[in-house]
């Protein structure tokens, strides 16, 4: 079986964000991450496109994404002082949406940096 190759892929495991990685994959799994270091290789090879976890959980029970989204919106809207936190392992596009969320809710907004 021939694998697809992506040149100059970006590793986001550590702050170096190396952008010269060559990935060999078949859309389900990455088999080789050339030029990546030990940490980066582990990061790429440990993720698969398999469905290992339920789509969403509400109070520990499986739920659909739409139900979970509605529930999340209700809980956040009901709160007097919600907190939006994290944003490390995610993209800038998602981070921007998080800032919009905090703005809309009148919430606290914080990242790992403050730790």
């Amino acid at each position, binding site marked *: 079986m021939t694998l697809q190759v*992506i040149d100059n892929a*970006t*590793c*986001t495991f*550590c*702050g*170096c*964000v*190396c952008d010269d990685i060559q990935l060999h*994959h078949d859309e389900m799994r*990455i088999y080789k991450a050339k030029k990546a*270091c030990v940490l*980066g290789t582990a*990061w*790429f090879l440990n*993720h698969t*496109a398999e*469905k290992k*976890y339920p*789509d969403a*959980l509400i109070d520990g029970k499986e739920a659909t*994404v739409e139900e*979970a989204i509605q*529930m*999340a919106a209700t*809980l*956040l*809207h*009901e*709160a007097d*002082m*919600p*907190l939006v*936190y*994290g*944003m*490390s*392992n*995610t*993209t*800038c596009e*998602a*981070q921007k*949406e998080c*800032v919009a*969320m*905090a*703005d*809309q*809710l*009148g*919430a*606290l*907004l*914080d*990242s*790992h*940096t*403050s*730790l």
Partner: protein
Amino acid sequence: MYWGGNPAECHPRHFTKYTLMQKSKFLPRGRKDRTMVLVDIRETKSAKASDIFLQVRPGKDFELITILRAMIKEQHVGDEQIAETGMTREVLDDLVHRMKSCKFGCFFFGMGLSMTRGKHMNSAALLTLAAEMNAFTKFVAMPMRGHGNVTGADVIMRWQTGYPFGITFNRGYPRYNPGEFSTVDVLVRGDCDAAFIIGADPGATMPQPAIEHLKRIPTICLDPHVTHTSNLARVHITTAPQGIAAPGTAYRMDELPLPLKPALKSPYPSDEEVVRRINAAIAEKPFWLAEGSQPQMITNQV
């Protein structure tokens, strides 16, 4: 100069890709044209890569930085004060000479500096030292960032709100006060009454009182895995891992944005999509401030 960090094990390609090995127009011999100094309390693997290793006494970083700030200005420093940090005068004289005579110096500081006794005062002192070094030569300082895109979070928050972290919108406009609005403090004091956690696992990393508070309040968690935080959360949504199955942008620690090239097709939605959908669901509900008391936009003012 690396201060309180262990790049050999935490940022394995930092030396080869950025700081030590690369050959350039002004440094044609690569590693041979550079001097690397490591300041740490322990002799880590990174010490092998360094030319000079300075073992500072634990908790004495601030004192050592202050001594260096005095020495570059040729102010008097007592022998006992130097001895207290675990250094000798010869070593520091040599270091100051090298720092002043280099063409371009850079401090990379890690959690060994910013998370030990003195905390952000240590970082502030090192930044001041770097600034003061510019009276003699070009010198800069840069924090060694961990986790993927923390730098991106800083940049995005700065762009959108004017502040990098520790922000509140509770008066309708952003205000900044680390210590008051930073998450650990908020959680330990039990201030907030709901939490939305994305791309982080405070359930595994925060102090126990903070975790207890997350258990008490409704917590919502977005993560590619079911984490410690998901287990204590009311709502967990599985999302596609960034850079592997979700496209987007990530910032390198020197604030250079880089595009991600995802290889896999994930069965889960991306963080971006889920947050956008939650925002849309919130927007359908009434605004949290009563009509008339909403903050005025500049364009609406007379």
